[in-house]
């Protein structure tokens, strides 16, 4: 008797509910991005809210429209997350490796401060106070905003407070380009090895008082470079990388070493004529 009652009750209940759900599913259906359903399917349906969303479906919606990453779901397995990522993922086209390059070499050993900046120890803040107190208005302030912003640990400050990019780690994300208040970084193809490491728009030997490795706009590199590989603009040499620039000739007569060759193995190579810099701080280079 009990068995019959309960089977009838539960059978009836389920029948009723199934009908309701199925009818409702048809009648009340709302059009949506079909990918949401697929992604929701891939999620564990724990509806636990651990992702910060009120449930799996809203999270799936956010995944589909790019608002979140699958890793937020703590419940899903590793494979599940990869699966979702692959389903939604768009391949990044392969291109030549690009890296961030710094257009300044004026570390504390060669460049002088006109005034002593005090205040928030970030380059962005300092640059708003008389440009940061460095004699060369365009030069690196050395307060390491770029080092902090780089998510990939690709930048370290050397012993003279100049950032050094580890080209292997750099992903060319451009964060450092954006953060530097002096606009010293740019993203360059790795093969651009001829490089002007200065942004000083002044000309003449006066600038050497502020920074010994600054470009004095003497234009020797322009003269020495084959063809019109280099042209002087705004008191700085500009390299036309669309031409064949695989030559170290232009750096040879630079008196300050502002134009350099970045060797993959040997690092920075300066011209023969560039004068030896008189080290001010006797600090060791602290990197690597």
């Amino acid at each position, binding site marked *: 008797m009990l068995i019959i009652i309960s089977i009838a009750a539960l059978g009836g209940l389920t029948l009723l509910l199934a009908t309701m759900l199925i009818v*409702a599913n048809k009648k009340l259906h709302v059009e949506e991005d079909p990918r949401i359903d697929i992604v929701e399917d891939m999620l564990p349906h724990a509806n*636990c809210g651990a992702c910060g969303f009120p449930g799996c479906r809203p999270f799936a919606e956010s995944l589909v429209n790019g608002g979140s990453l699958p890793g937020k779901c703590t419940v899903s397995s590793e494979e599940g997350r990869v699966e979702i990522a692959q389903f939604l993922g768009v391949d990044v086209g392969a291109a030549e490796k690009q890296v961030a390059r710094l257009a300044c070499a004026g570390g504390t050993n060669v460049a002088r401060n006109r005034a002593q900046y005090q205040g928030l120890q970030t380059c962005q803040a300092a640059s708003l106070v008389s440009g940061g107190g460095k004699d060369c208005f365009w030069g690196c302030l050395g307060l390491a905003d770029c080092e902090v912003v780089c998510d990939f640990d690709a930048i370290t400050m050397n012993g003279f407070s100049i950032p050094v990019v580890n080209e292997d780690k750099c992903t060319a994300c451009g964060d450092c380009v954006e953060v530097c208040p002096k606009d010293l970084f740019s993203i360059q193809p790795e093969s651009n090895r001829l490089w002007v490491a200065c942004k000083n728009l002044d000309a003449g030997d006066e600038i050497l008082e502020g920074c010994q490795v600054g470009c004095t706009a003497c234009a020797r590199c322009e003269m020495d470079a084959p063809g019109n590989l280099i042209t002087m603009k705004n008191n700085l040499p500009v390299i036309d990388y669309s031409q064949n620039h695989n030559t170290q000739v232009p750096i040879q007569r630079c008196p300050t070493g502002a134009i350099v060759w970045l060797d993959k193995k040997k690092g920075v190579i300066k011209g023969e004529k560039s004068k030896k810099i008189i080290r001010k701080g006797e600090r060791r280079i602290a990197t690597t």
Partner: protein
Amino acid sequence: MNDSLWFIFINASLINNFVLAYFLGICPFLGVSGKLETASRMGGAVTFVMIIASMSAYGIHALLITINAPFLQLISYIVVIASTVQLVEMFIKKISPGLFRALGIFLPLITTNCAILGLALFQTNKGYGFLESFVYALGAGAGFTLALILMAGLREQLDLADIPNVAKGTALTLLIAGILSLSFMGFAGLGG
């Protein structure tokens, strides 16, 4: 039983707060208390579902008593609540996408949640009548919302704090919940 409706409300919302004293609905409490905006909407949705659940449970209980099948209580509660809420969800989605955005998206998370089923079971255990059940659901919902909103405010503020690494995430949330739970102990004995 001398439970006035007012007392039922205070009891369910403050003294025996569902989250902080009964430990029901902790998962959404931890998960959805990060942003005030979401938290308050979630609170509204929970209250709403609690009322639905309470009403359905009242009906089913009466039915089960008649057919003398108390052993089907759990299964029928959960199934009926889950499907009713799903129906309501679809209904809301159809008639008002705005309301759905605001409340509806929380509904699936809530259905399979301890607080809702717990409410239904407790109200049955306590033998509440229709009106009492309704007020109980209202109080439980209000208490849940209150806890959620307090938590969200604190967490939003702490988003800007220098939290030590070891404490980031769930640990801190649990700790705040613990302190809140202690604070709610002040309400113990109210109306007793």
